[in-house]
Structures are given as C-alpha cells and as structure tokens.
C-alpha cells in the first residue's frame, strides 16, 4: 500500500539541490552517450573487422525487416533454418517500417535488410548506403474492405480504378502512412488513379499492417494489405473481406540489401547469399504457408527477377 508517496517538505535549498542532482544526471548521461557514439563511429570505419561477440562465442547479426513480413510469420521458419546452417551467428530480427529499416541500414544499426519498398531502396543504393542488393521473393497486395462494399469494387481487376471508386464515393479508407513498403505501394496506386486522397474519409494510422487491419475491421473501412498478413489474420477479422486482387500493379517485390555501414559484413553477405540459394528458395520460401493456408504466402524469384 502506498503511504505518503513523497518525501517531506523540501525547502528552498532542497529545490536547488534537486536542480543540481538533475543537472548532474543529464551531464553524466550525455557523457555516456558521447563515449558510446565515439566507439561506434570507430567501428564503422573498420567495417567487418570489429564485430561484437556475445552469446557463447557467437557473433551478432542484425536483420532489419518490415512488420508485414514478421506478421506473416515467415521469420519463424526462416531464422531457425539460417541459424542451423550458420550456427556461428546470433541472429536478431528487428521488424519496423521500411522507412526505419532503411534508416537503420544507413546508420549501421542493421547489417542486412529484407524490405519491399523499391523506390526508397533505389534511393538508398544510389546514396551509397548499400553494398549489394538481390531480389528474393514477391507476394502481392490486395484491397480489403467491409462486406457491405459501399464503393462497389468487389471483383475488380484494376487496382487503380478501384481506388478511384473509393475516392469518388468517399468511403472510409485507412492508410498506414508510415513510409512502409505497403504505404509506398498505396501511394503509387493513388497516383495512378489520378487522385490526391484527402478528406475525413481518408485516415492515417501510422502503424503496422496488423494494427491497421484491426482498425479497418473495427470501423468498417477499406485498406491495402499484403496477402501474407491478411492470410495470417483473416480468421480474427469478422468485418473484412478480400475485394480486389490479381492486378500486376499490386505486385510486391522483396529485396535483400547488405549495408555499407554494417558491423557484421561477413554475416550480412552470408545471409543474402543464403536466402537466394536454390535450396532456401525452393524448400523454405516456396512452401511457407502451404499447409496452413493452402497456398504459399511468398513466391521466390531470386533466379528470375533482376
């Protein structure tokens, strides 16, 4: 039970004392930060030679990917398989938006990326932040919406046209608005439809795919989702249906990128080469989701795509 939660009366001197303590804490904190950053900037200039050794002689390897990829559950099979093939690495997966994943790659906080935001990726490579980039797999996006389908887009094969109908009917639409790959795709579709979406019907969640689907489900709105997350979540979403699919424009290509600033360059390369190897492509990626959903979530295309 909480009795008197605060100490007794502080006098004027106490106020000054409090200020001094706080100032000291801030200075101390900043000092720690400066020394930490100092050492990390050293490490980035000798990329690859200075790697952290942590768990029982293993070296850390940081993969930054997207929340949609994680929501699909692919990493639950991929990572154990990689660790089995390369036991010397302690694999860490950070799932964020594509935007932040690229930022992490830029600063060297991630060694290798698995993202699906082609335009941003090209910028990343042009700016020199990436070492190597290889196509890995693709899945597709789909347009999800309420069963009542106020914009009447069910069964359409032209995604951009469907978006135009949503805009014209001012039906509730939820955008992730988080610089993710999905968000980037959505914005290209609006562009193709010749529409700049604005108004009370176009709402931004700023969150991942899973959360955005929940919101669309609760409020009965349309959204653009990747098939992986949709398949994983659709049983718990009672108020959403798959309305539009199949358009080439909904194609969602994944690339693996090794980062120039990586701490563990060796590991980054090992991962990238591993994930595009025929064995992984055929046996892990191509089969993932088959038993659970009747169809694979991702289509490997390391060999065929550029």
């Amino acid at each position, binding site marked *: *039970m*909480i*009795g*008197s*939660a*605060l100490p*007794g*009366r*502080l*006098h*004027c001197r*106490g*106020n000054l004392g*409090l200020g001094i303590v706080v100032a000291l804490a801030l200075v101390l904190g900043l000092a720690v*930060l*400066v020394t930490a*950053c*100092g050492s990390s*900037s050293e490490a980035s200039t000798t990329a690859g030679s200075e790697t952290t050794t942590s768990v029982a002689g293993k070296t850390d390897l940081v993969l930054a990917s997207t*929340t949609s990829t994680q929501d699909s559950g692919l990493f639950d099979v991929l990572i154990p398989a990689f660790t089995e093939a390369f036991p010397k690495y302690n694999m860490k997966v950070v799932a*964020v*938006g594509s*935007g*932040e994943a*690229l*930022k*992490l790659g830029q*600063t060297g906080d991630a060694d290798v990326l698995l993202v699906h935001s082609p335009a941003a990726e090209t910028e990343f490579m042009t700016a020199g932040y990436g070492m190597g980039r290889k196509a890995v797999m693709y899945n597709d996006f789909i347009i999800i919406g309420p069963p009542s389908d106020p914009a009447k887009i069910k069964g359409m094969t032209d995604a951009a046209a469907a978006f135009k109908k949503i805009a014209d009917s001012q039906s509730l639409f939820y955008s992730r*608005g*988080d*610089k*993710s790959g999905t968000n980037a795709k959505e914005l290209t579709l609006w562009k193709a439809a010749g529409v700049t979406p*604005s*108004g*009370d019907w*176009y*709402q*931004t*969640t*700023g*969150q*991942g795919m899973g*959360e955005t689907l929940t*919101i669309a*489900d*609760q*409020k009965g709105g349309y959204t653009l989702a990747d098939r992986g997350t949709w398949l994983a979540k659709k049983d718990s979403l*009672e*108020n959403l249906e798959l309305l539009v699919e199949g358009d080439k424009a909904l194609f969602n290509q994944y690339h693996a990128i090794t980062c120039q600033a990586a701490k563990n360059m060796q590991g980054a390369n090992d991962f990238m080469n591993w994930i595009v190897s025929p064995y992984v492509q055929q046996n892990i990626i191509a089969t993932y989701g088959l038993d659970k959903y009747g169809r694979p979530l991702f289509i490997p295309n390391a060999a065929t795509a550029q």
Partner: protein
Amino acid sequence: MGVFWDAIKQAVSLLVHGDRYVYEVMWMSIRVAGTATIFGMIVGIPIGTWLAIRRFWGWGAAATVLNVGLMLPPVVVGLFVFLLLSRQGPFGSLSLLYTSTAMIIAEFFIAAPVIAAITMGGVASVPKDVRLQAMGLGASRWQTIWLVLREARVTIISGIVAGFGAAISEVGAVMMVGGNLSIAGHNQTGTMTTATMSLVRQGEYATAMAFGLILILLAFIITFLLTRTQQGVRRRWLQS
C-alpha cells in the same frame, strides 16, 4: 552521435516554428490526460478518503481492489477497454473506439487508482485527533472531511500529479484504443507517446524528438510546481 544531435536540432526548429502537427498532438495528449485526471480526482479522492476514514464490512476487499488497480499493468487496462468498446463488445454500438473519448476512458482507469491510493495513504496519516477535536467543537461531517483533506493536501496533490504522469506517459493502452489516427496531416487521435512510437518506426526521429523534449519539459514544470506546493505554509499543530 550525429543522429542524436540532428534530431534535437530539428526538433527545436519544429517547436520554435510552431509545427502544426506537433502542437495538435501535444494538445491532444494534454487534453486527454488532463480530462482523465480530473475525472480520476472526482472519483479517486472521495473513494480514497472514504476508505481511509471509515471501516465497514468488506473494507478489506475494497482496499485490495484499489491496490490491485494500482499494480495493474496499464496495457491490461488498454486491453479491457478495447474489448469493451470493440464491435463485438458490450459497448460496441457506441462507436467509441479510436476516439479521444476512448483514450480518456483508458487513461481514467490508469490515473484513478493512483489518485485514490495515494489519497487514502495521505488521509489515513492525518491523526484521528484532528477529526475528533473538530467534531468536538461543532464541525459538521463535511467540515471535518474538508479539514482532513486540507491537512493531507500536499499528499493528495502529489497523488494527482502522479495520476496525471501515469496517464500522459501511457503508450500501449492509448495506442490500442486510440489508434493514432490522423487525417491529411491533422492529428485525430494521436498522442505524444503513440505518435512518437509510430514516428520512430518510420525513421522520423526529428518529430519524435520534439515530443520527447516536450514531455521532458512538462515533467520538469510539474515537478517544480509540486515542490513549490510542498514548501507552502502548512498549519502546524502544537504539542501542548
């Protein structure tokens, strides 16, 4: 280190130039937490006072419930409120999910137990003699309670501050029931905490840092004011 300083510099620039989104979100945070705290006071202070003064059958159970409410992880509060307000839930028809009302409700259940528990502690440590002597001089029940509250006011104020602090700094529960929605760059249901999370995910460190700076500044201001009230003149009882 560059990232850190860059973020701070850009954040200060956003604040100084009055970036509209930043100020909308800041106002939302303060409004929601403030409203939740006010309701928390209206409910929490009487409950805390009552539990401190009166013993009744079932007092032990009531006090336990209060302390459980205090220990409850806020994310659990978020879960409960979400389930209550969702389409499938009992209050789904009210369409309160992803509105500021839902956030106020969640933050209320986070702030109120804090305020009630601290009030209870503060009032209980006012000696019973104070009440008895006041009554012995003709104070009515309400005058006596007011006297006791005045005696405990420093603790009660610190409880209110603690409740506000818990409310405004909550992330998970608010994200669950608020949704961090925005429309065309105008904030709808984002708070400083949930917006920060989403911005960091996107790599937008500058705006996130702006919120961080505001929250730190807010903490300083509140602590400063709290310390001032503690120094205020208190009626000192004499030992005769």
